[in-house]
């Protein structure tokens, strides 16, 4: 799984003086008594590419619809540029949405679809025609203007839907699982196109997705949601390298968790299934508290001999499952006590050692810097 490095020199959320474009304040939404969104507060800044990520049912689409105006919050409020949107109906909000099903009007051709929103603004014909032509060029669909939606491929329809929303120059563009209907390869290409597009037009994009790698690829910041609550809001790097909880660590990518007690010096954790573990950064917890050490599979080294026997972060294991995925191999290894550890190794081709097979007895180790301590 690839992680995007530091994206760009753009981080308004770090500036204490910056005012957010979209301010969601203690919003709760109930359906039939059950809270689908629970006291959720969030700030999104102008020009951000923001992702709402979470398992199905976590409320991310509901949050999007609340921003668009198709649902009203049971309590709390949403402010756009300081203006309270609660009483503003959807057709009057400076917010536009790209629907998961694209929702292209089947009885209108591509040009008319894109022009629809501009017509509602009452712009004059020539201006509309110009903006539509510009937009067609931007999404690379010149010449498709008089086609009808059913004459387009899935990828083309997606671009028309995008164009239709973008042409209105909204303050915030909401995208509801925009790439879900595309096949893997197209999805990968379109992700980069979307990022490009957002850079060029400069609008704030809020994307809803259940696909972690998509969120990690395109977003400046990600909000991970579970059951109506925010679990963590941070940049992709922070979320992966420094998850705030076991849930987030487990949700994003794979992780090995070792439960133990924090030692007196704050840097060692006793009593884990892998013995005594050492970390490099002192966690915020009292000595003796129960904590979890999280180690990503790609940071686990597999060796035939123990690196230095008796040292911390080193444990004997047996390979119980080997999966070859082309670019890397995933190993499941069982340690004393029965728990399983996952390790991934890139198949670089350079053979340092013999390949590891099922049943082999090996040693696992990792550096203290590779481990994160989680307190919840």
């Amino acid at each position, binding site marked *: 799984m690839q992680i995007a490095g530091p994206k760009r020199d753009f981080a308004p959320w770090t500036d204490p003086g910056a005012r957010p474009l979209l301010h969601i304040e203690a919003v709760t939404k109930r359906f039939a008594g059950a809270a689908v969104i629970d006291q959720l507060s969030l700030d999104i800044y102008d020009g951000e590419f923001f992702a709402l990520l979470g398992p199905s049912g976590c409320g991310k689409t509901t949050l999007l619809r609340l921003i668009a105006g198709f649902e009203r919050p049971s309590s709390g409020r949403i402010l756009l540029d300081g203006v309270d949107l609660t009483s503003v109906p959807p057709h009057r909000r400076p917010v536009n949405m790209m629907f998961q099903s694209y929702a292209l009007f*089947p009885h209108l051709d591509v040009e008319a679809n894109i022009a629809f929103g501009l017509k*509602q603004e009452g712009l004059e014909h020539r201006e509309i025609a110009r903006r539509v032509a510009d937009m067609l060029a931007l999404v690379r669909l010149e010449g498709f203007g008089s086609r009808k939606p059913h004459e387009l491929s899935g990828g083309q329809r997606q671009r028309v839907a995008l164009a239709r*929303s973008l042409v209105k120059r909204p303050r915030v563009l909401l995208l509801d699982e925009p790439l879900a209907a595309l096949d893997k390869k197209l999805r990968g290409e379109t992700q980069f196109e979307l990022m490009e597009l957002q850079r060029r037009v400069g609008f704030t994009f809020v994307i809803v997705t259940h696909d972690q790698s998509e969120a990690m690829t395109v977003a400046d910041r990600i909000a991970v949601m579970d059951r109506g609550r925010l679990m963590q809001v941070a940049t992709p790097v922070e979320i992966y390298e420094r998850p705030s909880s076991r849930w987030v660590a487990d949700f994003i990518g794979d992780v090995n968790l070792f439960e133990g007690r924090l030692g007196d010096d704050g840097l060692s954790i006793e009593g884990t299934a892998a013995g005594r573990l050492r970390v490099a950064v002192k966690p915020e917890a009292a000595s003796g508290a129960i904590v979890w050490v999280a180690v990503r599979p790609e940071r686990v080294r597999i060796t035939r001999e123990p690196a230095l026997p008796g040292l911390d972060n080193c444990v004997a294991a047996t390979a119980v499952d080997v999966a070859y995925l082309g670019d890397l191999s995933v190993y499941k290894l069982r340690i004393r006590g029965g728990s399983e550890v996952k390790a991934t190794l890139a198949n670089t081709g350079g053979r340092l050692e013999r390949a590891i097979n099922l049943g082999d007895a090996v040693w696992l180790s990792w550096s203290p810097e590779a481990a994160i301590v989680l307190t919840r």
Partner: protein
Amino acid sequence: MRKFSAFNLAAIIVGMVFLYLPVVVLVIYSFNASRLVAVWGGWSTRWYAELLHDAPLLDAAFISIRLALTSATAATILGTLAALALVRFGRFRGRLLFAAMIYAPLVMPEVITGLSLLLLFVAVAVDRGFWTVAIAHTTLAMCFVTVVVQSRLVDFDASLEEAAMDLGASPLRTFLSVTLPLILPAIAAGWMLAFALSLDDLVIASFTTGPGATTLPIRIYSEVRLGVKPEMNAVCTIMVAVVGVAVIVASLMTKLTGARGAAA
């Protein structure tokens, strides 16, 4: 496993023969030169010619057509509104009663609806005639229109309406620019159904009509209850032909427009 067995084929053939034989016989006999059914006197169009001289019959036909046009249009408007309310408006107060009032007339025996409407008109001392029949037909037909339009609305992708509003169209604009064009075939089908219902109705018209508003079915009924009449064969054949052509044309048209709007 969509196997089509001999039994299935037999069922369809027998069914179709059963459905169409009587009407086919009727059409054939309308060209029977002889007055007696038992005797086949050769092909002739004399009964059609005699129709043209039957003034009361022609009057009745004219009234029936005007009536059908009026009530079909009114029923289509009312029925479409009702369908919108049922499908798009969620749970509003009185929805249950509203829905009950829509579905009940579909099954209620016509003698009851006819009788009740007549008593209403008498109670408010309204002169019975063309307009009372029109009101009665509108009331019955609108329920059928509702059912037809509603089934189209239910299949209709609601996110199209949300998209329109998201792009700045007010609810009314959304209905006019997006919803209406796409449900138009269903509305047209509803109109035709209402038209046919009004044209064909005997019982309700008998109860609610007045002097000077004798409809075609009432006229035909008064002629045939005493026995088979050859001129009636001719009238019926014409009506069957007109309706048959109209329905076939309409369904061909919906097939053509259906392909375009199928995505919705």
